[in-house]
């Protein structure tokens, strides 16, 4: 049935949008990461967190692609 096929598609779409939105808000909310500690191997939080966040959003995008959104 069409309605049964559509509902999960919509659910997938909404969760991908939500994940993108949260990812974007985190990367734009400076007070969250504008700090030195905790640092990793001498690299302040400000720097490693934002680099890590690139990877996180890339994974979300890959999942979105897999889900066919």
């Amino acid at each position: 049935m069409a309605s049964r096929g559509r509902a999960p598609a919509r659910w997938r779409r909404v969760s991908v949008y939500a994940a993108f939105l949260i990812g974007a808000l985190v990367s734009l909310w400076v007070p969250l990461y504008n700090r030195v500690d905790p640092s990793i191997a001498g690299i302040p939080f400000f720097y490693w967190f934002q680099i890590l966040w690139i990877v996180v959003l890339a994974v979300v995008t890959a999942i979105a692609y897999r889900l066919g959104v």
Partner: protein
Amino acid sequence: MNWTATTVFVLLFLLVTVMGFVAARWRPGDLNRLDEWGLAGRRFGTVVTWFLLGGDLYTAYTLIAVPALVFGAGALGFFAVPYTLLVYPFVFLVFPRLWSVSHRHGYITASDFVAGRFGSRTLSLAVALTGMFATLPYIALQLVGIEVVIAGLGFHAHGFVGDLPLVIAFAILAAYTYSSGLRAPALIALVKDMLIYLTVIVAIIVIPIHLGGYGAIFRAIPRDKLLLAPPSGGNLGAYSAYTTLALGSALALFLYPHAVTGLLSARSRKVIKRNMALLPTYSVALALIAVLGYMAFAAHVATNPSYAPYFQRYGPNFAVPALILDQFPSWFVGVAFAAIAIGALVPAAIMSIAASNLFTRNVYRDWFHKSLGGAAEARVAKNVSLILKLGALAFIIFLPTKYAIQLQLLGGIWIIQTLPALVGGLFTRWFHAKALTAGWLVGMVVGTAMAATQQFQSSIYALHVGDLTVPGYAALYSVVLNFLVVGAGTLLLDLVGARRGTDETTPEDYLLERDEVPAAGGVDAEPDVIM
């Protein structure tokens, strides 16, 4: 003169020159057609598109200017990271629609789409001119990248002889772009990107070993540069600047004609979507390149007397070349400098192709030569691409570099004004073309005025909201105003019962995949090859 470095540099340059000319025979097509010359027949698969877009968007100027900003201003320069992180989800959600509708109707430029969607030649012209004027200084800035590394190789002559290497590099670029079209930068991008990745990986391993580890590098950075200054006294300061720069730049990037050209040359929607998950690799590389600015700082290159004349001439833009000269053996200096110089050729070629597509289609054909098509259209585009590059070259040789930098900064503010028409148009037909044109004009004027208050030195404008001062990217502020004008104008035009222009697209056009489309360009479905 650094002979070892120069030899390696010249050899790599010769390699890409040969590749540029051979590219004409790569997946042969009739180069006398504009979609073959200017979009390489819309046939690029995932891998080529990844190299092409990566080579196109992460320009030589970016590779020089981002670490230069980190070197000079510190943490603020890192806005390039949230910027290039935000851009891909945005493109993932929005731009496959542009690919589909363009494939269906044979659009080659964003202006083609706007004309088809809103039935307005005026709006389409506005979009085309904005794209051209935003791109031209960008092409000129690529030359600055080449200029800086040629100087770094120890080429000291002044006057005509001093400009000669630049002229030769650009003449070669112009020749193979003319003959091979988009295929040339696509093929060269493979070499460019591999050299860039090689340089970055070697740099982030070798330089910290020389400098005593990452801890030592970051400890050498003054505390006030290491983090963004927190808001104080009702001024959001660096916080709002950082956020708005990231968001505004992310929204603007794929409005640039060279980005649209890269997208439209993909063979399917799928290729674009897949690449949005793969392109962040370049963002990671860019973040690491940004950190090179700190490495340059920690290596004290600015106070090293042997680089003093270069810093005097090129400012912080010499930070990375100086770091490379300081830390690497000559032969690797040649590799790294070639990466930067070749990194200038790829975007410069694509930008000139994109801008000449715009001129040919949306200015010359639409306004002066209605019947233009086929081989004549491609011929005009090829010639225009030559003229554009000549113009960029003259700009850099005869005018101070700072004008190109200021114009490129303005270009970012200008190009974002096409957001309501292009991105808005991909989702809704509600906007009136006249309202979009009015919003565009208001955004252009206000955005330019905001930059003028900063003497065109900075695109950060201090907005006052009550007692609060919110310094932010003028592009973002002005495009918000643009949207407000578009919304109000559309309501008003609806109120007086004004008619909308003809829309030649249907809602299904925006969702079609390659195989579902009777391609307007005449190229039909072929096996899904990955290259």
